[in-house]
């Protein structure tokens, strides 16, 4: 399982089984294209399609990829094992909410420069708790 905070270059990447990390990087990168597609499609699609949560981006054979984009164009991507069927949509949504909340806190921290890799310990611990809960 992996998680990534993006601004078209990764600000933060974390995964649980650390051996497959490169594969996760690749999956996350390709999913960015889908995110872009979804965002630019918002204009011509339905007016109520303005939620921040993007839902299931696309299912590959092994993984499910979920996306979420903030108003400040920062993208969050969560990659989950397909075998983990216990995670429901609501739970993924709440995971993204928690991520967004901690990201906002990071943003407001005077020691953080927007655009830098995220080094906040508080953010780290929120992510760890979430990943432990999900696995």
């Amino acid at each position: 399982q992996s998680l990534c905070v993006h601004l078209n270059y990764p600000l933060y990447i974390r995964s649980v089984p650390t051996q497959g990390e490169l594969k996760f990087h690749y999956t996350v990168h390709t999913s960015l294209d889908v995110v872009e597609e979804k965002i630019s499609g918002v204009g011509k699609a339905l007016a109520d399609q303005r939620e921040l949560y993007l839902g299931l981006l696309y299912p590959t054979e092994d993984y499910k990829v979920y996306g979420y984009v903030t108003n400040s164009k920062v993208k969050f991507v969560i990659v989950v094992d397909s075998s983990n069927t216990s995670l429901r949509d609501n739970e993924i949504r709440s995971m993204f909410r928690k991520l967004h909340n901690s990201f906002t806190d990071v943003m407001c921290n005077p020691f953080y420069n927007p655009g830098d890799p995220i080094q906040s310990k508080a953010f780290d611990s929120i992510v760890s708790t979430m990943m432990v809960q999900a696995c």
Partner: protein
Amino acid sequence: MADDALFEFLHMEIVALVYKEQATREDIDKERVTCVSTLDAMGFRVGQGMIERFTKDCPTFKDDLDLMKFLCKDFWSTIFKKQIDNLRTNHQGTYVLQDNKFALLTQFSSGKQYLEEAPKYLAFSCGLIRGALSNLGLESVVTAEVSLMPSCKFQVVIQKL
């Protein structure tokens, strides 16, 4: 009860401090420019952080105009306790935000007195707007003008790449 005044007083002290620091160095000509850009940079960073917090629960903005309206209503009311009174645009990336009773200027005068001091107190707010827009994906140039206090106009020109 005194909450509203807190930010106003702090802001006045920040401006005074920035100018005092600069006055101890020799170069008078550069003084104004450096002070204004220091205040602008402060506002920029604050604007970025604030907009992240405020747009946390909002749906995505449809277009630039929608974004500016949000800035004029919700953003401005949360920070300055009132909305922007007038928003004008040429629909080509230039917006003029007019505030007839700008919170940071009301204590000065209600006419022409102290007019030449006003720009110092607008630099931070210009930075605030610029920072907010930058975090929302729009690079802009923000300038402010005052002709009759406490009313002032902020001009925002969106830079299209």
